[in-house]
């Protein structure tokens, strides 16, 4: 039973890490009043970047490639939405299509038409002395790849940055009232572009996590809707770093239930488990979305 519970916690954290990273990035973007529906594309580009980068510099190179590719993808979105003021939803949808098509084409062209399963170096778990010895949850929480600790740390840093620093205040001002923010001398386009680049880096890191800390390989469309789930997690976390982190963990735990159910041997069809994350997202959004308040200027293309 204890091993089963440990496996459950471990699996919950494993699912939550890429989602949490991407959602924390998207959180900053949304607090600046932008919704990047193209996050799915950012993640898959990050995953591809991890594949490319790991060819040059192993695990570290992989993560660097993931962040760089994620930021590059987000900068395309930023150029369209911030500079050209295009519709955010349509631009994001097109960006996801572009990213999936481009990574698919490049993968087949560069790594073989059949898409031979490449095995690349993966990040090994890093054990935190002491904390990992906590019964039941310790091993799951504190015997994880380093990127998981980046996730924990980003939550704390963002919390401090958003609510305790001037740039954090400026970010929130831009998302709530762009016109007032501009009147106060805040450079809107700069804040929004930088927040999109940050979100791109985090989304890329999430994609890198899938490749370097989990799958050990790249597969076409391996983001599998995580970008959209991460956007839902931002809503569920009520646009707050702690809330988003908790939502990601709850989501990870809910998805990890499948391992408990499969272990229980109820003979349920496996597609039910695969569909679970998506159905859960819908149910959770129905419960929360109406009762929370989005940043005032979210997704509005006000010429400010």
């Amino acid at each position, binding site marked *: 039973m204890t091993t089963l519970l440990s496996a459950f916690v471990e699996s919950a954290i494993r699912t939550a890490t890429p989602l949490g990273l991407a959602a924390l990035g998207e959180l900053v973007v949304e607090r600046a009043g932008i919704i990047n*529906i193209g996050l799915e594309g950012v993640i898959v580009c990050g995953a591809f970047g991890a594949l490319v980068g790991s060819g040059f510099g192993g695990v570290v190179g992989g993560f660097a490639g993931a962040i760089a590719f994620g930021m590059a993808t987000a900068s*395309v979105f930023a150029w*369209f939405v911030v500079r*050209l*003021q*295009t*519709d955010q*939803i*349509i*631009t994001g*949808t*097109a*960006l996801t*299509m*572009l990213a*999936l*098509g*481009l990574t*698919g*084409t*490049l993968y*087949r*062209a*560069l790594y073989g*038409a059949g898409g031979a399963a490449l095995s690349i170096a993966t990040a090994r778990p890093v054990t935190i002395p002491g904390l990992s010895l906590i019964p039941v949850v310790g091993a799951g929480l504190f015997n994880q790849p380093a990127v998981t600790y980046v996730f924990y740390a980003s939550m704390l840093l963002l919390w401090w940055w958003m609510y305790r620093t001037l740039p954090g205040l400026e970010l929130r001002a831009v998302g709530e009232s762009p016109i007032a923010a501009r009147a106060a001398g805040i450079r809107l386009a700069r804040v929004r572009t930088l927040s999109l680049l940050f979100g791109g880096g985090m989304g890329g890191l999430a994609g890198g996590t899938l490749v370097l800390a989990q799958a050990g390989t790249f597969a*076409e469309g391996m983001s*599998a*809707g995580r970008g*959209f*789930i991460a*956007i*839902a997690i931002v*809503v569920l976390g009520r646009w707050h770093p702690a809330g988003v982190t908790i939502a990601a963990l709850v989501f990870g735990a809910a998805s990890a239930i499948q391992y408990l159910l499969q272990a229980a041997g109820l003979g349920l*069809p496996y*597609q*039910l488990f*695969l*569909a679970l994350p*998506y*159905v859960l*997202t*819908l149910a959770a*959004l*129905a*419960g929360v*979305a*109406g009762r929370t308040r989005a940043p005032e200027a979210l997704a509005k293309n006000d010429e400010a």
Partner: protein
Amino acid sequence: MLQRAWPRAIRQAAVGAIIGAVIVLALGLFLAVLRYDPTRAAYALFDGAFGSWYAFASGTLVRGTPLVLTGLAVAVAFRAGVFNVGAEGQFLMGATAAAALALYGPALNRPLVILLCFIAGSILGALWAAIAAILRTRFHVLEVISTIMLNFAAMYLVSYLVRGPMQEPTHVYPQTAAIPAAAELPRLPAVRLHLGFFIALAAAGSTWWVIRNTAAGFRLRATGANPDAARSAGGVNVNQVVFSAFAISGALAGLAGAIEVQGVTFALYENISPGYGYTAIAVALLARLDAALVVPAGILFGALEAGAAAMQRDAGVPSVVVAVVEAALILALLGARSIRQHFREAA
């Protein structure tokens, strides 16, 4: 009026031609960098799409049929300000309903079976979209998220059905048995072009007419243009319009799924849609959300997809490159529109 209208049409055609040329050149360069042969790829693409009457009717128009219908689905929804990106899931549900009715329904005469399958597909597509409609109107859930989630749910539902309760009798292949001949759509002689294409044309025509000439169409356009104004100044029940837009959109996508099963695949299987529901977004945007223009846009993308299959076969270029072309086209159109607005404001 005329002297104003002409330059505008010419300007738009010129912008379109420039965008097209830039994308073609960029694609050629991209393929050359990846060490494919661009001229060979272009020839294969053109040959596969337009090389003969057979290629055009059996490839381009057959591929274009689901794209016209799903493109219409997206256009109707977007016109009402409903970002239904779930045509993929609604298509799958429509295909499932039609296959189920054809396989397990009563043996009736052919026209009746075909019609009932169409209705079943449309209804299940509409119901699948209605989930997102309820989530938006009652629970304020962003439909971009909910419809994508529903796409994944539909995908796994089909996967379960064709490996479980609906699997063909020998239990070897993950697909249903072939549907009875009575449910198959009639075809033109010697090609694979089927009745569904003409139904898609009729659907486009009637949708265009309804949106342009009826009170319901006006309410749809008003809600899409400015929901607050439609509510306060026009007395429009916005939630009702949003709900109808979802339902009609889902029904059109579901009909596309039914037609695909009855006219092309004759069975339900997992990857029955190569992403028609996503390509549909590009189709609708290229048509500037105009139901009549969805027909040429859908056929154009049908040509691209049919050509891409030939390109993969003859020049080894991965057909997924079509998604790049589609996305680049959407971004180029968005950019061109934005730059045009910029100049208009500056003038």
